[in-house]
């Protein structure tokens, strides 16, 4: 995956670029808004990581300019402003996701990969997700594993749906809170873990292969263990 990091703080940029490369991605760096805009409009990137406060051209203007040009590369906004309405402003400017500084790298990586994946999946939104012998029908709201129906609460269904949409990818706790519950605050306690473990009990109990995995220090992933 090809990622452009537009970030003026050299240390932070080096940290992100290095870690992205370690995770197996191609990562470029632009030190200011103008440079970033030029590189983003020329290069064929899968995801842009844009800092909000940039010299020469600020982050939101970079995104707006790109969108105006018809460049729809998904953008993850990084910001030291973690306030409630800053996120709204960022997303309104054309950003696709928002991450407040400071952040854990696992969080950044998970979000970048989710954005890239969303781009690929956008063309054909499937109505049925499949992971191993687990099947989720988004229209009939039916979940089956090995042809056996599993009854889920509405929230559990949305949780599983989000995990399966990002199958094979790490999703973090905050991503789950944002996408399943639509809250962006820090829950501080293990509320998400409890929900996932309940879902896991329904999905994996009595089956030889576990599909929902805990990724230490990062979050969760649903994948076909056999593969």
């Amino acid at each position: 995956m090809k990622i452009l990091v537009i970030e003026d703080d050299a240390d932070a940029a080096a940290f992100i670029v290095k870690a992205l490369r370690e995770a197996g991605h191609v990562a470029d760096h632009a030190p200011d808004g103008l440079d970033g805009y030029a590189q983003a409009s020329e290069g064929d990137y899968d995801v842009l990581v844009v800092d909000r406060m940039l010299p020469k051209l600020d982050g939101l203007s970079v995104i707006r300019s790109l969108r105006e040009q018809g460049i729809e590369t998904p953008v993850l906004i990084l910001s030291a402003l973690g306030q409630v309405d800053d996120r709204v402003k960022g997303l309104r400017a054309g950003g696709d996701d928002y991450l407040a500084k400071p952040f854990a790298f696992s969080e950044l990586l998970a979000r970048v990969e989710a954005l890239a994946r969303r781009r690929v999946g956008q063309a054909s939104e499937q109505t049925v997700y499949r992971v191993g012998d687990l099947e989720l029908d988004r229209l009939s709201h039916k979940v089956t594993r090995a042809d056996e129906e599993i009854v889920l609460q509405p929230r559990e269904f949305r949780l599983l749906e989000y995990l399966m949409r990002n199958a094979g990818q790490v999703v973090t706790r905050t991503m789950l809170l944002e996408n399943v519950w639509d809250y962006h605050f820090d829950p501080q306690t293990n509320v998400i873990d409890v929900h996932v473990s309940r879902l896991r009990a329904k999905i994996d109990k009595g089956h030889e292969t576990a599909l929902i995995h805990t990724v230490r220090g990062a979050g969760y992933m649903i994948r076909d263990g056999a593969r």
Partner: protein
Amino acid sequence: MTALGKLFRTTAFKLSAMYLLVFVLFAGFIIGYVAWNTRQVIDNQIRDTIAAEIRGLEEQYRVGGIRRLVSIIDRRAREPGASLYLVTTFAGEYLTGNVDSVPLDILDRPGVHETFYSPGDGTEAHAREAMAHVFVLPGGFRMLVGRDVGERERLDQVIREALLLSLGLVTVLACLGGWFITRRVLKRVDAMTETTRTIMAGDLGGRLAVAGNGDELDRLALNLNAMLDRIGELMTGMKEVSDNIAHDLKTPLTRLRNRAEEALRTATTPEEYARALDTTIEESDNLIRVFNALLTIARLEAGDAAPAAAPFDAAETARSVAELYEAAADEAHAPVTIDIAPDLALPVNGNRELVGQALANLIDNALKYGLPEDADDAHIAITARREHDGGGREMAVISVADHGPGIPESDRARALERFARLESSRTKPGFGLGLSLVAAVVRMHGGTLSLEDNAPGLRVVMTLPLSPEQEATA
């Protein structure tokens, strides 16, 4: 600045100068008006006397011609306090009368004149004033009948003197009064200025003297004192916050630093290093949380920078947050009951995210501090309903209640303060920002927050005003 210059600039001086002017003009007008009217009355009286005199003489003339007229005038002129008479030939030769001479041209012009004359006793020449009616009689005889107007002139003189005297008196009195009042007021204002100067120099405990007579200066002093009290409160609050920040942020920072140092000194295996780094990251995450909470509270309390409001359903927010925490509470063996009618809608204009976070904080608090000693009693109740407040407004009332130790009534106000950790919770993790964030969110939405006794336990009740336009359509 000289004392006099200072006096001239004072408002009190300007005011007394203006009063002085008004009084002088007024006194002048009154006296002038009286003088003018008196003069008119006297003039009319003189005119009437002359006219009566003439009517009498006319009759005599008609009966006995010029000779009778002359003899009558001759007799009348000799009476004391008499009018003035003069009869001359056409050439101006004296025939009779008690007037020695008048300006010659007067006699040639019939009618009423004001003129000088010399009395018949020959004492003064043209020194006295008179009002005279001149006639030309057949045969060219001239007759003058008049009255001395010296009395009128003397009255004028008296009035002029009275005017001058009263003007002088008014001026002196007004000046004295103005000076006295100005000095009195100036002294108090100077005292106030002096006090404010010492307050500005750092003595925040100083207060302005209040005379107790309830005048304008007293009211000003009272208001300034009230303002100083408020400033003092705010300063104390600020100082408390900064003391708290110093203490509550330095403590975890110190812990963080100590752990890192200890790991450097004692760790030998990669696993030990990794563990030390893990705790370091965990501790810094906690610090970031504190910073975020502090920033959010500060921003909400600043008011003007509050996030844009949008309509949302507080009942849905309460349901979803309750449901979010339900599983975790079950794990903590604290069953949750959610009492929110399924069809209840609570349209509130505000920020769903913040209200959600406030509710999450309340439930989180209930899980952290609201668990009773006897674990079987643990229970958390979340309710939401619509209620009318005293003023007939519809309110969204959301409460979170637990069965824990509760908060004694005396501590409830303090529990909402930043970094407040009640004795009972000191041993548990937390920074004492949860409830103050809730309080700030509720304030931002124009609602109220109350801590109540759940007997046993604590019940926190958030009351938010419903948005009126939504209500109409609901």
